[in-house]
């Protein structure tokens, strides 16, 4: 028997486990025709070396038996997500996802739709045969009204299961795709048109133009329960009546839906900035943080000190904690900062803990602080009872002392909020508290380090550095005079 070479396909299909050239498709199946066309286009355009096919789960799962190119076999529904990964990882390759109507239309619809919306640079071939072939002819989102399937034994009832999903029409609402078309393989003329469309899909990927979707109406004689000729007729008559053929969009050829052009104008208001480029991680992370502290060194003679800072969100509690932590780092201490977070971030009370130690820090949580700084009543009442004997509590003077600290704990009432207002900088109440920490020698850290850390905390607002340094000094002087 004479062997006819099939372009783009392996000459035998050993991956199928059989040393033959017989595909697994049923007689008259649209997949078989499309597989041949895809292989031909890929080969004729000289793209086999650079093409990566992303194969689906469904009847198309075995294209890797046939197409002579690299393949990645994806999970059910996820070929478009996987193709996103492939095309992002290999932007020079030609990435083609091949999906059926369960894979793309149902379980993986959002992945396909979002990939299209992002304008991922791959081509998606979507085989619509109006049902699930591989699993036994069940209803698909594309099943026609009244069509009998194994899960619509009385015909699809739109009152219960909705209407057929028009994938091209839905995707055509998006701005990013550059090509959207629906073709068919129901007869010779249509097959020739289909090949042209597949070629276009490959061209767009070869030239890295953007996202392309090609929906192909395909007969499934086995599950239609028809002979191949009748199945092709069904595909041509019934399916095309529901899913009209045509090129919905081919941007480079001037085929663009009017509405999409208008939308594009409307959304161009905000500016996208170019990303500053760096050559290496060292360059990226080598930027000074304003503190430039050395690595910690072990010094067992330095006892561990635990701090808790608490107040309302917006009072600068978290940055006050960071300030103390950074000052400790300047003294080569082991240092840990931990915030309360979650819903508390968005209004209400906020708190953070800082641990400073001469040896590596164990438990990160601060159950019994040596130093508690409170800016509001709820946090004072919540934490004051936990303070360690010999510890210090600094509380804003606006907080009524409804609860006395434990015995042996020193309490300082500091009008931080009032002082900040008096200085004309209400936001600097946390700087007032830092002044109090210095004035009462509460941190065990060098004053100069606390000041350096305060200045570094305004790295992004350099105009505030001197202002806060000045406030720190004035507040400290005021506190020491009282």
């Amino acid at each position, binding site marked *: 028997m004479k062997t006819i070479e099939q372009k783009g396909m392996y000459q035998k299909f050993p991956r199928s486990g059989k040393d033959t050239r017989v595909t697994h498709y049923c007689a008259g199946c649209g997949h078989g025709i499309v597989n041949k066309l895809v292989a031909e286009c890929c080969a004729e355009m000289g793209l086999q*070396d650079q093409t990566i096919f992303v194969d689906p789960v469904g009847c198309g799962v075995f294209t890797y038996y046939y197409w002579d190119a690299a393949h990645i076999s994806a999970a059910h529904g996820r070929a478009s997500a996987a193709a996103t990964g492939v095309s992002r*990882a290999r932007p020079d390759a030609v990435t083609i996802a091949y999906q059926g109507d369960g894979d793309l239309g149902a379980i993986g619809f959002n992945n396909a739709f979002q990939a299209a919306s992002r304008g991922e640079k791959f081509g998606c071939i979507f085989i619509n045969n109006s049902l699930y072939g591989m699993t036994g002819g069940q209803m698909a989102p594309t099943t026609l009204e009244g069509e009998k399937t194994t899960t619509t034994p009385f015909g699809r009832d739109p009152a219960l299961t909705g209407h057929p999903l028009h994938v091209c029409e839905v995707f055509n609402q998006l701005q990013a795709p550059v090509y959207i078309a629906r073709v068919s393989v129901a007869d010779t003329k249509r097959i020739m048109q289909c090949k042209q469309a597949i070629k276009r899909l490959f061209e767009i990927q070869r030239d890295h133009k953007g996202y392309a979707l090609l929906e192909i109406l395909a007969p499934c004689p086995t599950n239609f329960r028809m002979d191949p000729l009748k199945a092709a007729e069904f595909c041509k008559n019934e399916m095309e009546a529901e899913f009209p053929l045509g090129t919905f969009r081919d941007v480079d050829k001037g085929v663009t839906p009017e509405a999409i052009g208008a939308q594009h104008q409307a959304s161009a208001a905000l500016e996208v900035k170019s990303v500053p480029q760096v050559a290496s991680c060292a360059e990226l992370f080598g930027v000074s943080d304003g503190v430039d502290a050395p690595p910690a060194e072990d010094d067992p003679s330095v006892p561990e000190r635990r701090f808790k800072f608490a107040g309302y969100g917006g009072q600068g509690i978290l940055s006050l904690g960071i300030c103390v932590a950074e000052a400790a780092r300047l003294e080569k201490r082991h240092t840990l900062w931990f915030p309360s*977070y979650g819903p508390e971030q968005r209004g209400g009370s906020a708190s953070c803990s800082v641990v400073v130690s001469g040896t590596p820090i164990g438990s*990160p949580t601060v159950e019994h602080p040596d130093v508690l700084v409170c800016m509001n009543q709820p946090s004072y009442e919540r934490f004051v009872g936990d303070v360690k004997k010999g510890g210090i509590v600094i509380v804003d003077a606006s907080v009524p002392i409804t609860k006395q600290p434990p015995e042996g704990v020193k309490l300082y009432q500091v009008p931080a909020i009032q002082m900040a207002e008096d200085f004309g900088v209400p936001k600097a109440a946390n700087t007032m508290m830092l002044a109090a920490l210095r004035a009462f020698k509460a941190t065990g850290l060098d004053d100069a380090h606390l000041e350096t850390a305060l200045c570094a905390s305004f790295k992004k607002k350099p105009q505030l550095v001197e202002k806060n340094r000045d406030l720190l000094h004035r507040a400290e002087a005021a506190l020491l005079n009282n």
Partner: protein
Amino acid sequence: MTKFVKSNEAVVMGALYAGCDLYFGYPITPASEIAHGAAKWFPMLGRTFVQAECETASVNMMFGAAGAGKLCMTATSGPGFSLMQEGISYLAGAELPAVIVDVNRAGPGLGNVYPEQSDYTPAVKGGGHGNYQTFTLAPASAQEMCDFTIKAFQMAAKWRTPAVVFADGLQGQMMEAVELPDAELPRPDFSEWAAQGEPATRRNLVKSIFLDAAAQEVFNEHLQRKYEDMAADAMAETYLAADAELIIVAFGIASRVARTTAETLRRKGLKVGVFRPITLNPFPRERLAAAAKGRKIMTIELDAGQFADDVRLNLAKAGLGAEAANVMMIHRMGGQVVTVDDAVKAAKMILGK
């Protein structure tokens, strides 16, 4: 170079030094800072950040990128980690290297955003379908969030397996100093098996399907051998353990509570030490057995006892049935962290003091 950063940011730094080229992720508290850092830093280095539409998409984007021969990662927390399990099974089934960071929050269901270690079973035993495992590392500090992310990429590439960095909401949020690596790692070469869109890789096929039962069994046997061989890379550390009567076994953030607990009890003259598994899979079974033999054992954990059960299993498999039967546990759930006070009380009770 030392930076004072949130642990979550340290993950991104580690990934960049490890040569990770692509980040795919969907935001979720308390892991979101990883996405924030990646969104900013990956593009600055000419690498790729994609905000996926869901965690199912993230993990399948990784499947594609890893299948195309590049190092890639994602980060998530409980609910997102659950959504990824199918995809992680596919990664394991296709033997693809990829790194998944799980910053564990409290569950089940929506739960809350506070720390738990309750994803233990899916993070350590393979949470999806089929006979697979992941290489799972449990950091306990910002430094380790950086270092173990790097290690996770190395192990993922070495063993062709998905690797999990298993952290928790507390560590994700805390700031500590991180000493960054001196140099970036070179990119591994996966052209032997990856689909790279190049002439040399044209015949490569990335798949997890074996239609033939016999072939699927052979593949599974290969996987199991690989997991046995992975034991060579098991890691653990001990602290004050040599003469300890009571060994506290804990991982991740709980191991730091264990450390302070042991120090506190030592000051009271009680002989207490710590055994900390660093890799949860492969589990450092032999080292645990060596440290725990003939000792009293207590775990500290932030789950319902999944970890204690694994400790018992590993002790029993190491032939220490008696020790396994007597493993005690102190734990908290719901986002509460075991306090040193409570751990000290529990240890004293076990020691009869």
